[in-house]
């Protein structure tokens, strides 16, 4: 009897905790969706309506027709995030491999430096980065933005990648070496195919992080046609003139969808990769 009650209590408690936290995590998403389908006058109603009284697509229409600079930011964000993800994955592969396989002073030093760099706040770099990059002619270019963001992502990506390389048995390499394969062939044709899940995890991680970038683009890009999403939204749609909350929520919805899709599509790899990196790395 007593045991049974405790079991029921613990079960109820479990579902209560689950429900409370899940509501906390998901309700704001619902609220964003709901607001985006309200008219501005309804959005500004108090007490608020929990379902849009009249479902209005006007914010989406205005987003697609009048305020379509948004899509320039959107496309830019895809380009920058995609290229950055590629660069990061590539550099992470070679760096991660070097760290995982060659236990010499140099790689140990590099590995600890990479961990160290993750601690530096972006603002502290931005104060000087602008001047340095303009000397190199990299201001207002996608190349510059991609390089700067990649530099910030690579430390984590390389560390993550190295944990995947560590899981590849050393014997495979040694066998290939005995067969007379060169170092490049061993790395790119023998070992790298074995860490495909790691590559995916790193690539998606870098993509998600770059999609979220704010400060790099804020400082390094001044041409409105090169701006990326976060900064574009903050700058253009949070102007000084007025708020348009329905539109802002519609933008939020559109800005979030690709990430949700990417995540759910590659969930398996992401989760495995991050867990492997954080738990074992």
């Amino acid at each position, binding site marked *: 009897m007593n045991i049974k009650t405790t079991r029921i209590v613990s079960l109820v408690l479990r579902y209560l905790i689950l429900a409370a936290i899940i509501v906390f995590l998901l309700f704001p998403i619902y609220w964003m969706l709901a607001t985006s389908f309200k008219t501005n006058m309804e959005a500004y109603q*108090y007490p608020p309506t929990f379902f849009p009284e009249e479902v209005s697509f006007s914010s989406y229409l205005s987003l697609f027709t009048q305020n379509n600079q948004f899509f320039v930011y959107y496309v830019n964000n895809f380009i920058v995030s995609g290229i950055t993800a590629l660069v990061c994955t590539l550099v992470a592969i070679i760096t991660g491999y070097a760290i995982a396989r060659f236990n010499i002073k140099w790689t140990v030093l590099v590995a600890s430096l990479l961990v160290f760099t993750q601690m530096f706040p972006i603002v502290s770099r931005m104060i000087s980065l602008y001047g340095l990059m303009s000397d190199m002619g990299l201001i207002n270019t996608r190349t510059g933005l991609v390089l700067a963001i990649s530099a910030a992502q690579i430390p984590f990506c390389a560390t993550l990648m190295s944990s995947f390389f560590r899981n590849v048995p050393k014997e495979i390499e040694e066998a290939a070496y005995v067969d007379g394969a060169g170092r490049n062939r061993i790395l790119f044709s023998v070992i790298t195919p074995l860490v495909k899940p790691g590559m995916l995890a790193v690539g998606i991680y870098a993509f998600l992080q770059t999609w979220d970038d704010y400060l790099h683009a804020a400082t390094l890009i001044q041409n409105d046609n090169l701006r990326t999403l976060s900064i574009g939204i*903050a700058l253009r749609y949070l102007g*000084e003139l007025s708020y348009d909350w329905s539109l802002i929520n519609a933008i939020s919805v559109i800005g979030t969808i690709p990430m949700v899709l990417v995540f759910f599509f590659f969930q398996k790899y992401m989760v495995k990769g991050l867990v492997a990196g954080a738990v074992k790395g």
Partner: protein
Amino acid sequence: MRKVLALLAIVLVVTSSLFAGGSAESTAPASAENPLTIKVANYALLESGYEDFWNGVKEGFEAQYPQYKIEWVTAPYGEILNQVINMAGGGDRVDVIFGEEAWVPQLYASGLAAPITDIIDADFVADFDPAVMDVFTIDGGIYGIPLYVSPFILYYNTELFEQAGLDPANPPKTYDELLDAAEKLSQLTDTNGNKIYPFGQTTASVVVSGNALISMIYNFGGDVFTEDGQLNVDNDGFHQAFEMLATLDDLGYNPQNAKLKDLRNLFALGQLAMYYDQSWGFNGVTSINPDAASFTASAAPLAGGDGTGEAVLCAHCFILVDNGDAKNEAVNAFVQYVISEEVLNDYMANVTPAYPAKNSMADMTAVAESGVLKGASSSISNVKKVPYVSAMSDIALDLCTLAQAVTVSNTPVDEAIDAFVRSASTKL
């Protein structure tokens, strides 16, 4: 081997012609075939209310002057100064900055702003109201040329005034009258039963709020700086202004920590009866509620204490950069093209209600027929100049912090002012 030589020769010819082309461009006079491009930094292109106007300006200007082209440099309102300065640091100086009078000190201090009299025709400059030009004068030089001006004026909602039993033709003139009117207005609720705020003064941490606060201090006859730009806050007006803010806050009359755009939203929705704004803030009001013109009226800033309701004059202006004679000529043409009745009339009638600064534009139809601006038109002559302070934007933000301290934090006024002095004096 011969092939290689030929290739080398081609490369040489091509590169040298490129260089030749480069140098030719800088010496030949600008023409329709070889137009000269001027760079105009303009945040307004990113604000939906203003975009169409500026695109029209570019089109019209380039049609009238085929030898010139405009290249916009855009950044949001809050970032454009950074951008212009950073670009200049990289050797890329814009030619014109569209901005506000409050930006002049910083651009002057940075060495970017050039005296407009070096670039613009003297007879064009002479047509501007000297009192307005005084706002742009630092050390004898004029460092900005206004498109139009406005003090912080009082917008009020005539419908709410009627509902509260107040005379919509007789808005308050002093802060004491404001408190009386506010008491009646605060009894009202809107159709949803929501609270209606009687009065709005912006206090959020943005530079323009700091300017609005200085304007309020001037309303009370107070001062913030001495003539030579030192801190000067030991005067009644300064204290009274912040005591008034604290009182308004205690009574729940003023929306807390609001930006101007928050106030515009509330006003547009009929939840704010009066508020201080630059005249062009009305553009933000109509972007939320297109019918706002039917209940909006304006009045001169309130007088408080021993003050006469003096205010800070705001302006949208061009700040010019000297990039050599050829560019200056183009800038001269551009400025004179924009600041004209033909270009500005529709804009000032429909988008940005404001008062012209140029004498010959004083009677333009946009102003003569503006119902929204009529009430406050006398205030334009009752303005006071803010002395030149290079760290102006810093101090403006400190003033916002002071206003927040006496309102949301409920810090006693004297204590808050002491903290303000401590922080501000390290910046002067």
